[in-house]
């Protein structure tokens, strides 16, 4: 199977995971191509968090009200950043697409742009894997990354079929959060 792994990595953790997954897939006999998603200007980590400032306040009401959290996840408009020209701007020749990114509290701004910019996603099955520093809390970590990503993909005619999250702090009991 012809697979594209499109990854965005700031500190190398996601790239490491991308390598591991690519090795595994190659061993299974699949052909892998890579797409490195690079912002035109890579921010220092503080302005990166500043962009998502509205999220932090929204999060507080989300703790109190499930209804608001649903509303917030559906309506929060993730900011975007410009990305460098893509090696594979049209992904229609691939059977499967894997998107990999860190979690910048929400979908990273570069991935948000990539999902809007890339062509040929229609009727594709997409996998999304992500790395982040923090516990894999059900709502605030997993839901705020993969649900908006699935939503973006659905708008482009693709389907998110599989997710994988690699957290630096993991414990089963935290999943209930």
């Amino acid at each position, binding site marked *: 199977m012809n697979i594209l792994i499109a990854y965005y990595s700031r*500190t190398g953790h996601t790239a490491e995971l991308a390598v591991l997954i*690519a090795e595994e897939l190659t061993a299974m006999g699949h052909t892998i191509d*890579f797409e490195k998603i690079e912002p035109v200007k890579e921010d220092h980590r*503080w302005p990166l968090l500043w962009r998502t400032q509205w999220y932090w*306040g929204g999060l507080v009401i989300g703790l109190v009200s499930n209804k608001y959290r649903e509303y917030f996840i559906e309506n929060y408009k993730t900011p975007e950043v410009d990305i460098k020209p893509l*090696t594979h701007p049209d992904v229609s020749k691939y059977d499967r697409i894997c998107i990999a990114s860190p979690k910048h509290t929400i979908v990273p701004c570069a991935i948000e742009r990539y999902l809007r910019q890339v062509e040929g996603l229609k009727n594709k099955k997409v996998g999304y894997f992500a790395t982040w520093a923090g516990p894999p809390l059900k709502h605030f970590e997993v839901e705020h990354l993969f649900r908006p990503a699935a939503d973006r993909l659905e708008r482009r005619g693709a389907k998110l079929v599989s997710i994988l999250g690699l957290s630096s702090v993991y414990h089963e009991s935290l999943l209930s959060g």
Partner: protein
Amino acid sequence: METLQDSGKKEITINDIRLEVETLRKQRPHNKNVFIFLRNPIKHPVDSVGFLVFFSLMLLNVVFVPVFEIIRLLILRPLFTIFHTTMVIIGALFIRILVRRLIYIGNKAIENKQRGIYKFIYKKGFPAFLRFFNFCFGPSLKFYLKIDTNDIRSIGKYQEWVDDTLGVEGHWIESDVNRAVRLETWCPYAGRDIPYVSPAGQDNPESSATGNPDYSEFCSYFMVDWLQHFIESCNPEFEVAPLTCMIPKGDECCEFVYKRKKPYGGGEK
């Protein structure tokens, strides 16, 4: 026809990524987890400033954003919705009564070769009127129709609304990040519901000058201009292409092509 082509950027192999990972691994401090900076003193000046600015603002946001959100959702949003809905209803009546009447008078003017009225309606009054309409009702329509200004298909909802109001039937056949195409299959003007006279038959110098003597002046000139004006107010990255297929020309439908001026991913050939 827009086609996508690879950008010619060098292919990345797995070894390139391994190399990149190794380089980043050397740069990376040996943090056990994200909370390490709370225990260790901050050494880098950018980090200390960033830490202070970010966390103080974050605390402010945690207090004030919920207040803003509650005011916005419970008070402002319902008020705005009532206001915009009223504006859209007024706009629809405005179009239904005034625009149809103006087109009727304009067509009659061409038919009777009343040059003064023709010039007034087609050269001065009408474009200004349509632009004034966008100025008055555009923001409300954007809100009411839930138009996402980054999505070309979503901006096209405006034309759907105009078509519904004027009595034109149509559907979308294509929608993309760069392009959206709408076909209009039945039109009251071309269908003679409202009298329509092709300017070509009237020996009209304005139409002859454009080189498209068979085109309806209303759609090829005003409708495109009207949509273009609205699109520019939404997002200047998009435009409407000049009409190529039109019912008055003998085609089965009118084709409106919305497109991005500078398409993503390779561009136009």
